């Protein structure tokens, strides 16, 4: 796997918040900070590798039990603190995403990682539904259960556009094994079939992304690049505040109307039959 998983996330967390340490009581794998974005305090969250984790199966940057419950805790704190604020003043939540996957471990399954992941997805979605702009910045990898736990409930998703960005349901080797194909065949299919591709430019065709951003070297953000990314995040926040709090926007873009035609058609037919039944 890519040796950079987690490094890009940390680099951008640091560039955007000026901080690089977990909060007191949190595991070393979750960075959280309330920092200014423009003139507005925002909660930034990032999962990073913690080689010393007491859970062996998360040490390379996977999202496990502690990570999921910590994310949920931090997000719910902000929901509670802003409960009585008008929608326009609810704090933005920025998820910086660079996660290898969910943790593939026996300890995790025994202690119910499915519920931990659900708890984090619940917190992010609840924040969005309460009116917090929830923005994801995919700075590296966004895999499968890791992405569902951290980032995929956002109102708006931004991603860098370089070859180091991989958004997918499963890494190539495993996906090839399970679908009984060679990695070469999987790659060939990816060029023809957008949802199977490992290339972020193909992912953009699905209509799920708000914006692609370009930086020269995502591992070493420059000051002007940090400014550009901040501006893009601020625009995404404004756009999220102006839109609905559900995920309907993911079917409304021009790209979605092309690639997710079948989804849109099914919704239309189902609604018509529902009204008649």
């Amino acid at each position, binding site marked *: 796997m890519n040796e950079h998983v987690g490094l890009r996330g940390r680099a951008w967390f640091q560039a955007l918040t000026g901080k690089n340490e977990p909060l007191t009581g949190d595991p070393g794998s979750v960075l959280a900070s309330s920092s200014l974005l423009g003139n507005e305090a925002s909660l930034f969250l990032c999962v990073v590798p913690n080689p010393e984790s007491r859970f062996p199966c998360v040490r390379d940057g996977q999202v496990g039990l502690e990570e999921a*419950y910590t994310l949920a805790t931090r997000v719910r704190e902000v929901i509670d603190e802003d409960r009585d604020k008008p929608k326009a003043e609810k704090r933005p939540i920025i998820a910086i995403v660079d996660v290898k996957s969910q943790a593939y*471990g026996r300890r995790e399954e025994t202690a119910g990682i499915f519920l931990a992941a*659900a708890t984090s*997805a619940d917190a992010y979605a609840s924040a969005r*539904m309460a009116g917090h702009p929830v923005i994801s910045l995919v700075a590296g990898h966004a895999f499968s259960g890791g992405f569902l736990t951290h980032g995929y409930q956002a109102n708006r998703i931004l991603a860098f556009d370089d070859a180091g960005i991989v958004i*997918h349901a499963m890494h190539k080797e495993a996906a090839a094994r399970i679908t009984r194909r060679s990695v070469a065949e999987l790659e060939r299919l990816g060029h023809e079939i957008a*949802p199977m591709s490992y290339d972020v430019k193909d992912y953009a065709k699905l209509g799920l992304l708000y914006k692609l951003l370009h930086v020269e070297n995502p591992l070493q953000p420059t000051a002007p690049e940090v400014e550009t990314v901040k501006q893009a995040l601020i625009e995404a926040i404004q756009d999220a505040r102006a839109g609905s709090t559900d995920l309907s926007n993911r079917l409304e873009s021009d790209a979605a109307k092309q690639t997710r035609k079948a989804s849109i058609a099914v919704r239309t037919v189902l609604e018509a039959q529902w009204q008649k039944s």
Partner: protein
Amino acid sequence: MSTAEVFPAFVSRKSFIELDGRERAQSLFDQNAWTELVGPFDRAESPWLPMQGIAPQADDGCIVIKGKIGGLSAVVVSLEGAFQGGSIGEVSGAKMTAALDLATKDSEAGKKTAAVLLLETGGVRLQEANLGLAAIAEVISSILALRQHAPVITVVAGTVGCFGGMSLAAGVSSYVVMTKEARLGLNGPEVIEQESGIDEFDASDRALIWAIHGGEQRVGMGEADALVEDDAEKIASTIREYVKAGPAFEHRSQQVKLYRDRIAALDTSQQIDPMSLRQEWSSNKNSGGAR
């Protein structure tokens, strides 16, 4: 003496697991009080499978039926485990999300409509990879929207079980019903063995698998609500009770502090014994569970 004489109730019961996805959904409704929506004759098929030389199915393995359960409005969405392992593709995912969203719309307009999800699934359909993953994110979001107004009841009966991203859908449901035969977890044993090695998880060790993922364990730990026999009538009556109960007061997936503290207390220096953990977590069960 024959088995039927010794265990008459067991032998004469109607198994739920032996029903296919459509029959399972139908079996939950009041008599003649249901309509299937976007059924096989509408031919809402996966556009992606034929491009890969794989035969699609006319309902994409997802059955949506609307009607009355115990006299109350409800929609049942059933995944057919026999088609592509019950996996979520673009169309099957869109059907589930659309049904949940319409139930929410009706509930908000004053016509409370419960949702019952019959989940037999390995999660994302890898042939539709990113659209499957996106669909699951949307399913989770739509469950969360509906459960504020009406109950979302997940049933994992077996034998596929509920894994991958769809285990999060179970996790955010108002109530989870399981049989002893059912399994619920994020990663199935084969995936763990493949990713982390046989020392981490021996996928041929069936006793270990059910000790961790099995219905008895999940309900015993307070991570699911009801353990029901594989009996179609018993499952239907359990569903009727939950539909009648209405939305849950507090949801398990909101109980962050309880579970975070439990995780903090785990000894991770070795593998965790499932039975000991069940006893530990069930001892303060009144603070766990969905309510």
